[in-house]
């Protein structure tokens, strides 16, 4: 067995308890929310007899661990349940909405990296200089601007005043690729603007540290070109950090989609979640939370894998 396969197998094995914990927590959170699903469904018809009958029909009168096991069994069979309000299955609803959130997160990540990485390199190269100090300050300021504020400001400037971009809305990529991209500019900018400062600050300090290592001094002494030292000798070792932040960012971006999708009226996972909370659609709620949590866990798994690809010390287990 090659070290890589062994590493993969070990990691996958560790994933199992995490996923079980995720499913348990998801189920508990949804079950322990105040209020009763039977009351929600019956509304004005909620006489005590009706409620008791419906609770029995839905198995709500069974002990919670038994309900969890039943639910888990269905989940393993690929059945996450069905919304009592729309009749849609959780998987249908998620499949419809996922591409939107995915596109949003992808663009936001690209924007954050495209802004954050070059700035970090420039600042690290001349650390302590006026540009570095200015950008560090700006990044700090940008970190403190909440998405709901930057979203409204962007809408006001680009949609209401300049009429360059639409304020809200969505069109599938398959129907109108250009239109689709136009709709995504402002939302991804909103999310990206909140993310680049983190990338820039961490990468910058990492590179500054790397630039003080002995091997950099050696490289300088050998007379290597400054750009080569910067990009190859300093950036490459710092890229592990970059991957870590990018991985963590995906979690933050998922959180950000809830707000951004609501403001820009994008039909993504975040909106589905908010809607499910508002209407007490607990089946959709726990299904979506489970999907997001699993997605996040898998994403971190991929990040771990990337470490191993980049740094052989990790896959050999002596890091």
């Amino acid at each position, binding site marked *: 067995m090659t070290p890589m396969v062994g590493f993969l197998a070990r990691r996958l094995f560790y994933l199992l308890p995490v996923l079980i914990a995720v499913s348990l927590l998801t189920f508990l959170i949804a079950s322990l929310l105040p209020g009763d699903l039977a009351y929600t469904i019956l509304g004005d018809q909620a006489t005590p007899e009706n409620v008791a009958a419906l609770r029995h029909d839905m198995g709500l009168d069974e002990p919670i661990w038994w309900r969890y096991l039943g639910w888990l069994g269905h989940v393993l069979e690929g059945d996450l349940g069905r919304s009592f309000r729309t009749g849609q299955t959780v998987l249908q609803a998620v499949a419809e*909405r996922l591409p939107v959130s995915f596109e949003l997160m992808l663009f936001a990540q690209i924007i954050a990296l495209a802004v954050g990485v070059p700035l970090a390199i420039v600042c690290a190269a001349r650390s302590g200089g006026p540009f570095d100090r200015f950008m560090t300050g700006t990044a700090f300021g940008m970190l403190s601007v909440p998405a709901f504020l930057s979203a409204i400001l962007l809408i006001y400037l680009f949609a209401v005043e300049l009429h360059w971009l639409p304020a809200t*809305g969505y069109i599938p990529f398959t129907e109108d690729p250009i239109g689709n991209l136009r709709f995504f500019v402002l939302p991804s900018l909103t999310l990206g603007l909140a993310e680049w400062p983190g990338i820039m600050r961490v990468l910058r300090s990492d590179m500054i540290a790397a630039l003080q290592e002995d091997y950099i001094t050696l490289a300088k002494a050998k007379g290597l070109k400054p750009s080569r030292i910067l990009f190859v000798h300093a950036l490459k070792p710092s890229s592990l950090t970059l991957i870590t932040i990018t991985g963590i960012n995906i979690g933050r971006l998922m959180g950000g989609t809830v707000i951004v999708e609501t403001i820009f009226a994008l*039909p993504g996972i975040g909106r589905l979640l908010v809607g499910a909370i508002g*209407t007490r659609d607990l089946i959709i709620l726990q299904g979506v939370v489970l999907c997001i949590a699993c997605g996040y866990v898998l994403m971190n798994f991929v990040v771990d894998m990337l470490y191993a690809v980049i740094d052989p010390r990790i896959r050999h287990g002596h890091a």
Partner: protein
Amino acid sequence: MKAAIARRSFAPFFLVAAFAMSAWTGPAAAQKSGGSITVGQELDIPGFDPLKVGVFDTSAETAAAAIFDTLTTLDDKGEPVPKLAQSWSHSDDFKTWTFKLRPGVKFHDGTPFNAQAVKDNFDRQKDPANKCRCAFYIAGINDVQAPDELTLVYNLKDPSANLPAILSIPSSNNAIQSPTAWKTKGDDYNRNPVGTGPYILKSWTAGDRMVLEKNPDYWNKGHPYLDRIVLKPLPDAQSRFASLQSGEADIVWDDEYDADNIQRAMKDPKLTVHTYKGSGAAVYAFNTKVAPFDDVRVRQALVMAINRKKMSQAITNGLARPASNPYGDGSWVKCKDDGALPEDPAKATALLKDYGKPVEFKMLVTATPRGRTVGQVLQQFWKQVGANMEIEQVDQATIPPRAFMRQFQLTPWRIIDLADPDPQMYANFHTGSPVALANYSNPELDHLLEHARTTADVAARTEDYCAVSRLINKEAIWFWTFQNTYYAISTSKLKGVPKMFSGVIDVSNTWLE
């Protein structure tokens, strides 16, 4: 919140024949055909099958007004005029109503529209086995009969003189759906509705857009005007308004908690603010069976401590109209004396002193920014007169069950805009009703409510309802803060938006200039 009400009612009424068709004649010169509009709504629409969604919210009713037809509709004065029903008559006791239906109408799927189709709609909702939330609102109708193809008979439990007006709201009870469609499509019907209305559902992307296209075979020739209506949920109030300004939307839903934007739009010549001052009010019920609200002095003191003008200024920039009775200026019930208690903090303080014990209680508040603001303002008023209110935040869906089970001390509620006060007043105040939230029983109040529903004379009924208001205000079992005002903002090119009865934006008969 939509209060629990039975959608039936009565008032002075007489036979309306087909001549009252002014609202439904062909297009006048000014009305242009063609074009497309986008409507920005507050909420995602979950679907249209009453068995699944129970009741439609106002966003769903906007769509329902285009896809479906109702038996009647309201003209600008609020009087019912024919739609799928051409004429109607009632028995002397207002307990039996007979409707003559429009011939030659077909559902979008080709199913003929007839009395049996309406009866099927009713029976499906009424069937106890279906456990439909919608059944609550037709509890007052015993049954619906279809003696022949185009005759429909409603048999009511109690007299109702305003039934035709009540049937006009495009609610889950009143929108007539194709029986063939729900039978053949099963679970999928909810999101593939079929009606007889002026627009046909073309496509619907969950959470994004619903595209409605002109029904070429619509029974009302010359209608509708627009080729296409796109309905979009735009949940955020700020970006919804920005979408209107930037042209992504042509008309958007709004409410007075978004006062800044409404007032901005009023000054903008490119925009039109549609305002409908409806009947009803935002109301609150005390649970009079639990301390401290089992003592009338405490209830009166809390009501007298509220300064509605200040409150309106604080939460809606002064847009919200103070209410002193449950009917409002939009109702035909006009009282010379509604018995409203004066705003008098000094008297309130004295009453609480007189009561002697410390006044501490919890109030249910919806966990939304507007719910919290209202709660905090009331908390301050009451603190000033020596009462301690603790805010208990719950989500909107929790309030009705808590209210029905009487698990509250003070709860918010709403009396919605309706053509007649009877359904809601009877339900909210008659002894034994599930929605008589105050747990208060008074033979005099019961007698007034019964007399009002069995009388046809407007003046006599007005006197009854004013006496009801005086009694409730004096006993302070419920109180009212603001009258219902419904808002929509559109581009000024959009014409023909009717009054927003019950808060529904009906764009099915609009046109672009």
